[in-house]
């Protein structure tokens, strides 16, 4: 495993490489590529943290746990609530902030606070020729040139290896509270979540567990306000099931974030993104062994027998990714859904430009 200790060393390694490189942060997301391992975990440390400006600049290999601890000390957090894949995938290692950004990982709060890319203000990366490139900066509004910051988020290292990221952070809410709506089938749950998300009560989480027939609606903010909004939701959502205020909130939402319901269960795991209202008719078509819903119904986690190709069953606009499967299935089906021709051509064109030698995670992302 190549583990450069500085950005310059990272650039040098890439410039000198002739064969494929398997780029990773802490290696917790299980995306194996045939090639020499290249990890950013040696590039650690905080470059700048200004709580009063809500900005953090940090090297890519810094563990997420360290970032979160640093922010917590100032009562701030990564508002996009990045998922920790270790439980679901059974991987070891330590999630890094660069890995979170490269994989574009967001959690339940995405529906209200935005996703990882929405909180990414700037990047530094080494492209496939080993050149250091910077884009964006450390301020929240920046329209100076093309926004490569967004392009790098979720590119899984295929356009360049992140060495530093600049993030917008947000205050931790004083209180978090959850309304659980029991006795709701999927249709009622999606309708309830949609009503909640379309209310003025600033909902920051909306998930559904079909096994418990329960929808969960989260609000955050100042304690009195959160309690007030919970009470309003309980009364306004009464038509969809039996709403009540749930006591424990943090562990519940950590579980939803990390798809804990599927941890330790055998089979392949798919992650599907659709329009929430499409989820209702789509769910039975998936013929899954188990399902979980987040983002008001727009994010579907599906557990299927190993080797099943779920994608032909999806008859609505959306996107499916194979999050967990054996190496054979992954090789046969691919992890990411192939894109329509013109988009695939644009993506391939960008990869050729940024990685002319074709060495950065080749084969990944189509």
């Amino acid at each position, binding site marked *: 495993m190549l583990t450069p200790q500085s950005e310059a060393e990272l650039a040098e390694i890439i410039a000198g490489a002739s064969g494929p490189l398997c780029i990773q942060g802490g290696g917790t997301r299980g995306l194996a590529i045939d090639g020499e391992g290249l990890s950013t975990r040696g590039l650690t440390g905080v470059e700048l943290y200004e709580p009063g400006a809500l900005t953090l600049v940090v090297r890519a290999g810094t563990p997420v746990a360290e970032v979160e601890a640093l922010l917590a000390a100032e009562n701030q957090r990564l508002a996009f609530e990045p998922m920790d894949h270790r439980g679901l995938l059974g991987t070891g290692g330590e999630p890094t902030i660069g890995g979170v950004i490269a994989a574009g990982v967001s959690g339940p709060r995405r529906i209200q606070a935005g996703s990882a890319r929405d909180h990414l203000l700037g990047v530094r990366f080494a492209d496939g020729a080993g050149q250091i490139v910077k884009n964006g900066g450390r301020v929240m509004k920046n329209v100076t040139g093309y*926004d490569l910051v967004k392009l790098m988020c979720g590119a899984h290292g295929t356009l360049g290896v992140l060495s530093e990221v600049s993030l917008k952070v947000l205050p931790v809410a004083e209180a978090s509270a959850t309304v659980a709506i029991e006795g709701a089938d999927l249709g009622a749950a999606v309708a309830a979540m949609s009503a909640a998300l379309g209310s*003025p009560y600033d909902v920051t989480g909306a998930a559904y567990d079909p096994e418990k027939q329960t929808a969960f609606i989260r609000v955050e903010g100042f304690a009195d306000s959160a309690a007030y909004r919970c009470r309003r939701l309980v009364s306004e959502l009464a038509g969809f099931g039996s709403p009540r205020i749930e006591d424990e909130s943090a562990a519940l939402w950590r579980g939803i974030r990390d798809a804990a319901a599927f941890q330790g269960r055998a089979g392949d795991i798919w992650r599907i993104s659709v329009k929430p*209202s499409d989820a209702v008719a789509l769910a039975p078509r998936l013929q899954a062994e188990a399902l979980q819903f987040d983002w008001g119904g727009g994010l579907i986690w599906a557990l299927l027998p190993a080797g099943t190709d779920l994608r032909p069953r999806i008859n609505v606009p959306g996107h499916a990714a194979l999050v967990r499967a054996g190496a054979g299935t992954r090789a046969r089906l691919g992890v990411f859904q192939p894109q329509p021709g013109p988009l695939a051509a*644009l993506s391939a064109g960008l990869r050729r430009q940024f990685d002319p030698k074709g060495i950065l995670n080749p084969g990944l*992302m189509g």
Partner: protein
Amino acid sequence: MEMPSPNPAILARKARLAERLLAVLPDDAVIQDEAETRAYECDALTAYRCPPLLAVLPRSTQEVSDILRICHEEGVPVVPRGAGTSLAGGALPTADCVILGVARMNGVLETDYGNRIIRVQTGRTNLSVSGAVEEADFFYAPDPSSQLACAIGGNIAMNSGGAHCLKYGVTTNNLLGVTLVMMDGTVVEIGGAHLDAGGLDLLGVICGSEGQLGVVTEATLRILRKPEGARPVLIGYDSNEVAGACVSDIIKAGVLPVAIEFMDRPCIEACEAFAKAGYPMCEALLIVEVEGSPEEIDHQLGLIIEIARSHNPVELREAGDAEEAGRIWLGRKSAFGAMGQINDYMCLDGTIPVSSLPYVLRRIGEMSQEFGLDVANVFHAGDGNMHPLILFDANKPGDLEICEAFGAEILKLCVEAGGCLTGEHGVGIEKRDLMLHQYSATDLEAQLKVKDVFDPRWLLNPAKVFPLAVTEGRRTAAMAAE
């Protein structure tokens, strides 16, 4: 402002080009009369003008596709135009270009409150998107000051923001999908009503690319339910440093106001003289607005007022009702008009880290003395986006040039302080030549590579965003290939 000389071969093909366009478009969609094309000779950066070869006003994605295919075949540059409100010259034509205006494409295609999206044609104005969903108490969050006039297409091109971006983000954070027409006429759908599109985030790079990668004809936008209420507080200080510290303390305390506006003394004086909003005369004025339920507003304003008091304000005025709230905002909202009453002015758009605010304001004051031109400052302080207004006399020979030189120095100062050249207006032609102050040649090269992929012949919105010297090789090669 230097622009590439028009290609005589293209100028000579005007008649044929018009004929080909008229074969696929209705008569009223092609404007070739010189007097009429003059309406498109500039956008809101009126200091630079150049009538285009032709202007076209399509009504559908198919017509846009036909236009681009023909222009691509003819090797003619195309300058996309929304409502023409760009302050950076983003829609400035060249003499050999076709201006493609999307103003007639202003329909609402789909409104879906359950999934909280609206799909519109991109000629629709920003404010009328909110207008279309107002009856259900929803709104579209990005609120550029030009929102009454500016088009969603232009908002996407410039990744526009506004006063409320601290809480709601800018265009890119509220854009879910686009229909994009490539320069060769190919129509592609990127993203959609679902949140994860998969693949590279092409939507992210198209937003803010200033019309250089393709023409966006339709957009799926996130709409939000209106909060229960909003209320501002006005806080005056006798020093910029203290006002800056107050902003930082409010944010650190965990309150996230929906807007924090900052005005310096010259701006306060001008606004007060114009709007008579009853502002106190002091060095720095903050308007902090919070949203939520009545209880939440009370709680947040309570915290903000406590923090504000700890810095010894000269004035602290909480809005008791809508009328008082309106008066607090009145001066701020008339700032640009007020300055226009006093003099001609140039409005800059730089961004700085909030912590650098006192330093940057002090330096601007010193530079104002050096250049001999007055400056008034109004900021979106929550996100560090500043709009220094440099006053000059357009009728006085040489004043515009001094003003431009001064403006460039201010923008360089923003970069030096850790910020950037433009927060929400875009680069256009206005800040094109300053790009190498923020980015290295390698950084810019990475951006040019994206342009190479989307528009390999370099025909879309030429001579914007990048210094001409940086793009010269590519433009020459493209022209030679025509």
